[in-house]
């Protein structure tokens, strides 16, 4: 956990007071809606179909139990008793009142949580691997750098009015759980030949109506130069990114139009100039160590890998089913990372009630050194569970509906809020997800299918990351009716790829049937039981799946 110091605390309190003043001026008519809109967006406040929506940042996906309890409090006190975890390590509340927002922000600030820049054309919440600091084989904890970037990008005087939103993601593992290749800047931490920490910097990834996988702009930027290099990229983008057309304003379009080589040269020129004239951005070891020292790590015990409790519980098939699905290897022997599915059968993906959050906070205190993680798949995790505690934890999680054993399986669906909440949406996402979780509710079938990610977006803005779903579902509107385009073969990890369209869009009522057909085709076509769906698509192409789906339609 990163512990705020007095300076961090002062800044978020000052931010709350500023926003309180802005809301007051808006309610008094001193600010027009046009003037206020950007200010509220920069504090995470959208106007949705039915009410204001409030998006709160969970930087790099790390939460303390105390913070989670405060999120539960906000859900209860200012909203309708639940929150929705998003694909970018944020939580959203859907029914908040404008006049109460400053108080909600003040309550969150008490525990070091803010909503700064969770929306608007600025640098957004810095996201990272939800297993940061505990994943086996990780090079080092990427959250140190995430926090440095969080601070650097917060209220940046030069980059608060960029052409469009700007998102960072960082990973330090070979397997990318942070989806860095679909971010404006993706950072892969690695070491050079001298053993020094630095980053491969990728730029220009993003989804939306013109999706791109990020390209490498520099294969090694030394850690001490991270901020200056990022500043060079942001400065080039701020000056030359398109502002004439909102749909062409993301950095991916600038990179695409200039070409990565020319864009890289522009950045390099700017960076060299900055390095000559200004050393203030260079991080020295003491500064990095100071941030590192504010992260606390649990005092792990020396524990066996196979404690008696686990051996006994192994006789319970339900426990075993959950353990095999949701429990992952920890870097410390005797401990485990436990993923908590927020995808119950028939439920909206990513939602958690205030009661679930409170109980989970208690369980985190009891079993995970008071720490909880949030991942971009819209699930939660307990990052430091002693393996001997797994049976007891499972029972407790099951009681509050957080032990659905479908992590990474076909019903572990990513979905945006869609037309049920969002003013941009063309079609519903949540009911499609709910229907699919019912279709694939049988665990043995889902397990037989294996790893399969379905991502659903209710419009071309792609908040549900449909382009990079193994199966992607995109809602569109045709003559006033909801239709869905379906893609296959997308992925968001280190081998990120955009999915390919399988054929004409299908009406709302047929989506689940089509997905079932695709899955059946896969089961018939896969080379071996352990060939994943996405690998079969890679090997075979779209055609055999297209045939199967459209033969009878």
């Amino acid at each position: 956990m990163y512990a705020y110091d007095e300076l961090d605390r002062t800044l978020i309190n000052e931010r709350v007071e500023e926003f309180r003043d802005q809301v007051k001026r808006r309610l008094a008519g001193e600010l027009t809606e046009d003037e206020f809109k950007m200010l509220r967006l920069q504090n995470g406040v959208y106007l949705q179909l039915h009410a204001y929506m409030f998006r709160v940042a969970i930087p790099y996906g790390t939460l303390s139990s105390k913070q989670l309890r405060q999120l539960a409090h906000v859900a209860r006190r200012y909203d309708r008793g639940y929150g929705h975890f998003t694909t970018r390590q944020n939580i959203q509340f859907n029914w908040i009142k404008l006049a109460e927002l400053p108080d909600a922000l003040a309550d969150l600030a008490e525990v070091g949580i803010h909503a700064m820049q969770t929306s608007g054309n600025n640098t957004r919440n810095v996201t990272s691997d939800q297993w940061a600091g505990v994943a086996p084989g990780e090079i080092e904890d990427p959250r140190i750098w995430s926090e440095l970037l969080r601070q650097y990008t917060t209220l940046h005087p030069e980059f608060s009015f960029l052409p469009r939103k700007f998102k960072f993601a960082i990973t330090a593992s070979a397997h990318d759980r942070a989806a860095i290749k679909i971010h404006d800047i993706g950072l892969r931490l690695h070491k050079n030949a001298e053993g020094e920490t630095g980053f491969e910097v990728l730029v220009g990834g993003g989804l939306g109506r013109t999706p791109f996988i990020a390209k490498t702009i520099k294969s090694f930027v030394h850690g001490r130069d991270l901020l200056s290099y990022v500043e060079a990229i942001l400065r080039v983008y701020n000056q030359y990114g398109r502002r004439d057309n909102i749909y062409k304003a993301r950095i991916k379009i600038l990179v695409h139009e200039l070409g990565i080589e020319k864009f890289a040269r522009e950045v390099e020129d700017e960076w060299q100039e900055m390095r000559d004239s200004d050393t203030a951005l260079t991080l020295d070891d003491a500064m990095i160590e100071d941030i590192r020292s504010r992260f606390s790590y649990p005092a792990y015990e020396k524990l066996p890998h196979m404690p008696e409790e686990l051996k006994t519980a192994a006789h319970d098939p339900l426990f075993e089913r959950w353990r095999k699905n949701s429990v992952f290897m920890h870097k410390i022997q005797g401990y485990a990372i436990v993923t908590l599915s927020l995808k119950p059968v028939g439920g909206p993906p990513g939602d958690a009630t205030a009661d679930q959050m409170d109980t989970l906070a208690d369980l985190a205190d009891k079993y995970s050194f008071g720490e909880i993680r949030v991942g971009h798949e819209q699930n939660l995790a307990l990052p430091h569970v002693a393996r001997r505690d797994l049976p007891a934890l499972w029972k407790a999680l099951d009681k509050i509906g957080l032990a659905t054993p479908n992590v990474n399986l076909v019903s572990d669906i990513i979905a945006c809020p869609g037309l049920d909440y969002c003013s941009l949406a063309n079609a519903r996402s949540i009911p499609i997800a709910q229907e699919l979780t019912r279709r694939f509710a049988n665990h043995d079938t889902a397990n037989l299918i294996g790893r399969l990610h379905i991502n659903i977006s209710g419009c071309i803005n792609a908040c549900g990351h449909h382009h990079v779903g193994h199966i992607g579902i995109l809602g569109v509107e045709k003559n006033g009716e909801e239709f869905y385009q379906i893609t296959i073969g997308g992925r968001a990890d280190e081998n990120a790829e955009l999915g390919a369209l399988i054929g004409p869009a299908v009406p709302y009522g047929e989506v689940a049937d089509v997905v079932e057909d695709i899955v059946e085709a896969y089961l018939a076509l896969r080379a071996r039981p352990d060939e994943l769906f996405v690998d079969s698509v890679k090997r075979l192409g779209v055609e055999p799946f297209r045939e199967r789906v459209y033969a009878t339609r």
Partner: protein
Amino acid sequence: MPLVKGEKITDDTFVHVADDAEIPADGAILISSARFLENAEALSQRAGRTGVIWPNSRDVDDLVPWLDRLAVVALVFPTFRDGRAYSQARLLRERFNYRGELRATGQVLRDQFLFMLRAGFDAFEVKKPADAEAFANTVKRYSVFYQPTGDGRMTTLHRRMMLRHSESANP
């Protein structure tokens, strides 16, 4: 439109001269970049003080040869949502060491004052009188700054280093 300098509302001694109007030999004037660049050598040597309104779509590099002879560079925010002039301001101040007046014009609103100040602006043509009056209080909203700019405010990283230093010096 009130002009704020040194945190106070002041009289604007510069006269905006339109592109088709005659340029007076003396007196302080503000002219467009196009007008200025047509005849930059002569204009930068006129008796009166000269300022240029520089658009946010043109590199400030083109202005660099004349910077030490300009009294004002006015950068433009066509809307407050267009942030290009923040980069231009920092480049003028921090890279090209421009020391004259750096004026924010266009949709200059209260809630961006501090960003502008931090980017190097020191004069503000403020859209709304109430915002101009609130200037001094508004720029005191924050006491903590995460990133270095040319304004000299100490960043958190440096403050923490100093705190550590003083802690270790006084055990």
